């Protein structure tokens, strides 16, 4: 019996010598893993055009019905994305979202990705709905904000090039 007690205390004494695992959040933050699935980000191309083409495949893939997309047509005077079509409304209800990442898988242009941000808090339901402006990443350096005025004949593809999904 003493042997068992001794073995138990042994663990206790060992732990007293180790550094605590608790960190002082929010002053201290631990980096997330590379494949962590946090709040979504809508990405842009280097020139600032949005990757999202408003195809609503993310909304179709979403098991929680958290995404709402409405599309409209690009023109050279007012261009949001390289193709014919862009998302005029893009909303994610973060209360519904289960962060499964299916939207990321479904996206043909790799426009929506799940980011690192896990700090989501709301004080009412309306706040939980993230709009396109909130989700879009900032315009990269050297890029232009959307809508852009583009020369005719440059963006003739209906959809931008789609890559084979690689891990």
């Amino acid at each position, binding site marked *: 019996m003493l042997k068992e007690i001794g073995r138990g205390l042994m663990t206790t004494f060992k732990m007293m010598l180790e550094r605590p695992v608790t960190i002082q959040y929010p002053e201290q933050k631990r980096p997330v893993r590379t494949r962590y699935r946090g709040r979504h980000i809508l990405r842009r191309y280097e020139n600032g055009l949005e990757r999202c*083409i*408003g*195809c*609503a*495949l993310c*909304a*179709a893939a979403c098991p929680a019905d958290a995404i*709402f997309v*409405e*599309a*409209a*047509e690009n023109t050279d005077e007012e261009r949001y994305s390289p*193709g*014919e*079509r862009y998302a*005029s*409304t893009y*909303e994610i209800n973060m209360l519904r979202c289960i962060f499964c990442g299916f939207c990321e898988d479904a996206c*043909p*242009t790799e426009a929506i990705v799940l980011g690192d941000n896990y700090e989501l808090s709301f004080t009412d339901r309306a706040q939980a709905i993230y709009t396109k402006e909130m989700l879009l990443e900032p315009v990269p350096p050297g890029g232009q904000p959307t809508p852009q005025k583009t020369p005719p004949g440059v963006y*003739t*593809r*209906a*959809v931008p*090039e*789609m890559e084979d999904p690689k891990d």
Partner: protein
Amino acid sequence: MSKMVTLTIDGIKVTVPEGTLLVDAARQAGIHIPVFCYHPKLEPAGMCRMCLVEIGRPMIDRNTGQPILDENGQPKLQFLGKLETACTNTVSEGMVVFTQSEKARQGQKATVEFLLTSHPLDCPICDKGGECPLQDLTMAYGPAQSRFEYEDKIHLAKHVPLGDLIYLDRERCILCSRCIRFQAELVGEAVLTFDERGRSSQIVTVSDPPFDSVFSGNTTDICPVGALTTADFRFGARPWELKAAASICSQCAVGCNIVYNTRREARSDGRIVIKRVLPRQNEEVNDLWICDKGRFGYHYTESRARLTAPRAEGRPVSWEQALQKAAEGLRSASQKALIASGRLSNEDLYTLKRLADHLQMPAYLYTPIGGGEWVRRYGLSTGSDLSALGKGDAILVVASDLYEEAPLWYLRVRQAAERGAALIIAHPRTTRLERQAPHQYVLRYAYGDEGEIIERLRREAKIAQTLHEARNLVIFFGNEGMGLEQSESLAAACADLLVETGHAGRIHNGLIGVWPHPNAQGAWELGFQPIFDLQPLFETMDALYLVALDPFGDGWVRQNGRKPFLIVQDILETATVRQADVVLAACAYTEREGTFTSGERRVQRYYPAVPRYGDSRPDFAITAALGAKLGLNLEAQSAARLFQEIAGAFPAFKGLDYARLAETRPQWPPTGRADYPFSGTAQPNTQGMGKILSAVAEGTMTPLPPTMQKESLRPEEGTLLLVPIHRLFDAGSLLTPSALLHGRIGAPHIILHPKTAQEAGVTAGEKVLIEWEDRQAEALVKVEEHVPVGVGLVPRSMGIPLSRAARARLHLAERVR
């Protein structure tokens, strides 16, 4: 009965009539052979090569004519060296077909890959994506990977407008020619065709204006790829996001079965709105088709001018106050009347009629065309079906331009004529029906001679003989150039002709009124009296209850000092609503349920598609609430219970049941998700095909009064006779909210013969001032050859208030100024 043939498809024994195409026979056995260019309503073309199958035919001994047997006693089969198309081969006795064999699958896979060599694969942004046969069949039969890089593919124009309603994407087109064949074979106007050859082939429109057809929207339904899409639905939503509600088209009296696709929309402040209209299969009414007016004209239900709350003296008030004021107005008036239009449901009209009877005031139906009394007695009866007409039958179309007034009836009459029915057209000018349908006889009469049409038909020996000998006779009558009274007497004469030729009171026989409203026939059945000229009523009555009509906006009623107490019940803010003392806000028919009675007397149900707008209420509920204030107890909640009351009260409705109106019957071709490649995206009918009313005159025939002869004007030397005609796209308050159609509607115009225009000193495109009786209006001049000399055609509901033929003078608008 044709000979039956038995064959084996994928091991399943199938027995079908001789001459059946293999692809149809397989579908009847539940086997889906993949197709792109084949469509069950069109002639086979064999363009896409998707339906490749292995076909074995029994070898026949030439000497005995008997099949050669192998050692097992089975007929020896002979296979062609290569695959054959199932859409062009008809069945034969003993045929053995493999649709899924290794060889067939290889052929199908190669075909898909070949079709995709120049397809852009832009499914994520394509409006067809999700209901696209090419997408579905590629998933089912095609290779998983494309061997063609995007840069190697042919790149063509992706946004070509074919007319203002349809867009063509040349990259997506697989050249199946379904759209070309639909226009040429079914509609009879070859406005689309192939241009160039080989790899450069493309679809072009050869008409001016481009894609000049009122059936253009249907090509987007049967297009097996996303090459043809509508401008209305462009990037509107993905198909899988849409909810569907069965309904009936409200734009004319045909009663086409449709589906409203709806979706909640951020653009419309989060309301649920209609995104598009699709045809709903009803082989007895509209097959798989609808016209462009029905497809694109729904926008009025969500117009900004919708009434959201009741009003009194121009200010919004509560329902209680509005109803109280309306009831007081009706109670205190000694001379009062109720006027309703054919836009209301049977239930609304029944409730209104009960209220009118209770208050002892007349109940009028506001209609430019009369004679419904005769259609009620001599119309089609239970079991009739226009698609049953064919060889040996006769169809008479009098004073109606069916193409412009009821496009689906044009289509059905044309199809019946193609099947061999004798088509007789009596019209003062050449209509599209005459140009595009195989007709037997044309009776050309002058405007003003409408009273003699039927008499002249009797005198023409050949026509009279055809009419007498016809197994079935259906008569369509319109009111080209006629006022209410003249069209009434024309209807009576037509009914007389039906009786005289022995066709009255029989199935597949009868009179059809080409009404401009969806439920005018319902009003006739429920005992409303026709009226069109409302000016006398406005001058003599103390109170008027107007439901779903806009006589001020149409220009029929002119403001003078005296105005009766006006109660107006409508869905839109019209000129009449602005004149009203009390406004009762009704909800659109898309927001409630009810029934319409079509021109062929078919009672059909429609269902709510979107939520009610603001504080509006169904018409029958408003009338019932008003009745309650006036001491009349009416059903205010349930359209079903009201319909049961109608069925109990009116002999023609006897035996009809609201719930059983939702019954359907098996139909060919099959429709639905799995059959999108086969028959297009027309929706299956699961919510009711409707039922035709029973004949009132069955057994006992009501004696007809002698045909009334009404005086009408004739064209004379040196004068201009103005004649009102119907155009499909008019400037009525229900069509103008559809911005997409403004190009088709155009400006107010007058159509003249070149000679008439020359005499009047005007040329095409000039603005003229027309003066007739004590009225005047401005219009643009159009010059067309088919107009009789000395006549000016003026479309109705286009801002020129002309209700019947009138003598007129033309001036150049500039000269007047």
